[in-house]
């Protein structure tokens, strides 16, 4: 079984494919229904951001093992415009007030670890991990 797989995000339907991939992996790893829903919501959010703001990009799902604990890693990467003010988008109330959904703070809450790297004009790389407890 490969421990890495990815979905290209170009249309809105690719968001569903990314969710499906994430859910399958989460289920195989043994995550319960609620955590599966959290992981797929995070994937949805990240894939939607790619679709809406970068136009296209990729969602990659990896299985992790660290100190005997299994986990799932979501990588959302795009070559879009980048995020001008990361601190602002990570602020509560910034994206939700515009009705955009959970936003990146939401993704951070849904997952255990969250890292973001973004460069203006080059793109954004977000990595979010959830560990199986």
């Amino acid at each position, binding site marked *: 079984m490969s421990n890495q797989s990815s979905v290209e995000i170009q249309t809105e339907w690719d968001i569903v494919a990314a969710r499906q991939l994430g859910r399958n992996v989460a289920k195989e790893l043994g995550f319960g229904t*609620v955590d599966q829903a959290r992981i797929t*919501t995070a994937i949805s959010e990240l894939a939607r951001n790619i679709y809406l703001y970068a136009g296209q990009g990729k969602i990659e799902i990896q299985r992790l093992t660290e100190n005997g604990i299994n986990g799932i890693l979501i990588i959302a990467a795009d070559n879009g415009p980048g995020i001008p003010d990361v601190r602002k988008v990570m602020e509560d109330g910034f994206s*939700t007030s515009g009705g955009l959904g959970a936003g990146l703070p939401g993704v951070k*809450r849904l997952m255990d670890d969250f890292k973001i790297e973004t460069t203006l004009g080059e793109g954004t790389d977000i990595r979010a991990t959830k560990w199986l407890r």
Partner: protein
Amino acid sequence: MVQKIGSQYKEILNQYMQRQSEQNLYVGQNFSRQLISENTSPEDVISMHKAAMQELYEDMPETVWHSFDFLIEMMINYGLALQERQSLLQRQEELRMEMDLAANVQETLLKTTLPTLDGLDIGLLSVPLRKMNGDYIYFISDKKGHAGIAVADVIGKGLPAALCMSMVKFGMDSMNDSMAFPREVLNTINRIVEKSVDDSMFVSMFYGRYEAETSILTYGSAGHEPAMLYRAETGEFEELTVKGLLLGVSPMATYEEKEVKLEKDDMVVMMTDGVTEGRTADGFIDREVINELILRKKGEPAQVIVQYVYDELVRMQNAELSDDFTLVIYKKV
């Protein structure tokens, strides 16, 4: 822990399934309070419900179990909204504490001590509507009997108004001239405000210069509420009106100046619009009302009169002010 909560929930649910009484619903509601205090998210509650149902009624159709999974998916964003709310509440609390600190700093910064001056009995009071005060009383005097008294009001309230007022204070402090005439003071502060403050910020100010030797009050105003002069001889009030633009509107603004000689027991009343724009159920509190209040206590020391007017106006408005409130009364003795 989760398991313990799960079995408690199952028990409470089971009670209700046996008997649909108000009592059992009440127990459930109390339990939900406990869950909220432990930050249990809605999706976890539904998951717990599904697990409990599976144990209590295992032979339900598959569609029922699927429906719970669907509901869990639906609830994830609600759970996030709840967490976001909690973190925003925390941030609000932090901001509140920061405001308290800032208000303390401002209070120390803008503190006006009750001045003593031969020949004048002075009373003053400045009460902010919210935490930060957008009104300011300035006072300066020297041993030769010159005094400058200013009342200023930033158009606006709260933090921006307070920051703006701090600057006006520093402007006045750096002039540090008890002999300065209203025209000079208003010109200088106008330039400072015009240059350094946001275009939407304006300050009104009434400035009075008093000379003990001649008992002459020279006054000027930058779009401020006219001060009132009470003449002891006639028992009448007259408005001290004088032309001048708000501070910060134009660097070209010029300020008119007038003078009046104070006689024994005459009173000058300087105030901000927080005093005159109070409202009661019957409408605005007009100047007549304020004059009336002052007259009732005219024999008392100025500070007593000021406090009385404030207390009465607050009482008339059911303890609700609508703006920062600042009142200065000085009486020639």
